[in-house]
């Protein structure tokens, strides 16, 4: 690898990393604001204008609390738990395409950490690893309640991963590619997957709620049944990492949803905008500005889904554990399989028929 390429990749990855962290940080603020607004309150508004410094204050508080490890806990695993949760949450954002390319000095820079031809598979692999963070943390606490919470989280995540993967197969049958960049560029010009896969989208969305351990599937945390959940014994920044990992996961899954179903950085009429900008500002500046608009659109979509997560959280009551399992295994998985069959039949019979009609 050449040095310039190496430096460019390093910078892109750093930017992606920092952006993910900042968005996750401000999601905590957004969550509290949204909660407040939905409940006719103001939300945090004392720290800084509109409460914007609240995440910093929370982080400061977390860092200065006593870093406590229970006497009978497995010390290294107790530390490894939150670290793994953070690590796996952050890894997934590397393959998300945030925009097309930026031209600088004759070099085309792709706004994506790593362009991988198995991008979506990588995301699934990393998300599946996220269970380890929770499981190890819950087990290392040497507390039965923590362990129960962790087991709940693990079984929930594994159950919903199945339906999630199956709903994704329908998308892959249409795109015939695992690369996220490829899937996005196929949705160019308002040709979004949501119009072809509404059922798949609903299944994927439901499963991503369960994967992020968000309401209505937030059973790993339960004060009435489990004291706290898998992080009962955690305090200080280790607890902070667990909570923070949840918000990072939320951003990553919002980004994945907008990439897979809502065309990523594509928006209707982007060709017209691109032509106008390149005509008036030249092929370099115009191209860069068009890319930045696309990136803005992408972040708009992702932020909308983050808002959607919060909106659902403050609307729906949670499921009971047996209802959760019933929904996952008896409803979502059969639905996803039906979706695959319908998609397969459409790709095989309907698509040639419609294309022959159009030609």
């Amino acid at each position, binding site marked *: 690898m050449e040095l310039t390429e190496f430096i460019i990749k390093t910078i892109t990855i750093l930017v992606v990393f920092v952006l993910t962290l900042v968005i996750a940080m401000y999601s905590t603020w957004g969550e509290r604001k*949204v909660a*407040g*607004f*939905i*409940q*006719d*309150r*103001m939300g945090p*508004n004392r720290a800084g204008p509109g409460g914007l410094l609240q995440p910093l204050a929370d982080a400061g508080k977390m860092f200065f609390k006593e870093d406590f490890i229970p006497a009978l806990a497995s010390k290294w695993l107790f530390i490894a738990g939150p670290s793994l949760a953070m690590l796996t949450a952050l890894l997934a954002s590397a393959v998300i395409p945030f925009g097309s390319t930026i031209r600088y000095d004759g070099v085309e820079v792709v706004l994506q950490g790593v362009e991988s031809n198995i991008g979506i598979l990588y995301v699934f692999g990393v998300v599946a690893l996220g269970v380890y963070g929770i499981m190890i943390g819950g087990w290392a606490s040497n507390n039965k309640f923590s362990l129960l919470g962790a087991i709940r989280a693990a079984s929930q995540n594994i159950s919903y991963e199945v339906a999630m993967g199956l709903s994704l197969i329908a998308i892959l049958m249409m795109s015939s590619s695992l690369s996220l960049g490829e899937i996005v560029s196929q949705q160019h010009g308002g040709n979004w997957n949501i119009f072809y896969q509404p059922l798949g989208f*609903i299944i994927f969305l439901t499963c991503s709620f369960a994967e992020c351990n968000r309401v209505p599937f937030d059973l790993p945390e339960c004060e009435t049944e489990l004291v706290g959940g898998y992080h009962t014994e955690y305090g200080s920044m280790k607890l902070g990492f667990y909570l923070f990992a949840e918000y990072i996961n939320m951003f990553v899954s919002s980004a994945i949803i907008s990439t897979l179903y809502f065309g990523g950085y594509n928006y209707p009429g982007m060709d017209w905008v691109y032509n106008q900008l390149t005509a008036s500002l030249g092929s370099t500046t115009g191209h860069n500005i068009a890319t930045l608009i696309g990136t803005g659109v992408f972040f708009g979509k992702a932020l909308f889904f983050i808002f959607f997560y919060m*909106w*659902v959280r*403050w*609307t*729906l009551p949670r499921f009971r554990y047996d209802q959760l399992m019933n929904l996952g295994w008896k409803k979502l998985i059969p639905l996803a399989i039906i979706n695959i069959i319908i998609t397969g039949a459409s790709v095989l019979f309907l698509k040639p028929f419609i294309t022959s009609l159009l030609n």
Partner: protein
Amino acid sequence: MTLMERAYLPAIATGMAITLKHFFKKKVTIEYPEVKRYLGPVFRGRHILKRDAEGRERCTACGLCAVACPAEAISMIAAEREKGEETLYREEKYAAVYEVNMLRCIFCGLCEEACPKQAVYLRHDEFIPVFNDRNQVIWGKDLLVEDMNNRYTREAWTKEEARLLDMKRANGEATNVVPRAIP
């Protein structure tokens, strides 16, 4: 359950529509230190030792307020008025020291009721400010006696009067009511 109910998604959509409606609603919060709520004409806030129309202290240090006080928050030392102090004190006896312990006071208003000279009142418009030092707890005459440049008046004295005043204000009559004469 019907199929619509079992599908669960329409119910979710209605629920989310309701929460979204609340999202854009006007918030009920009163942002306290910046915005203060009117607590009514009979709210019992901080104490004040009234002066009469000529600026003489009304208190004669009879001690009835201290006797009436259920929390024993009030203490005073009486003194006799000297020659030449007629402009300062209304009667021959006055309170040289008058202290209210604000940690003991329960703001019941019994001192107000007990006072035969209409000297002590609990203001309806001011609180005791938050104190963080023990020296700030006991309020002496320097804090309690009324400032003649900034006199304390109460426009309505009972809930009925306040309601009447509100009605008059709402109708555009009588923006300012002359306070009840003190005997």
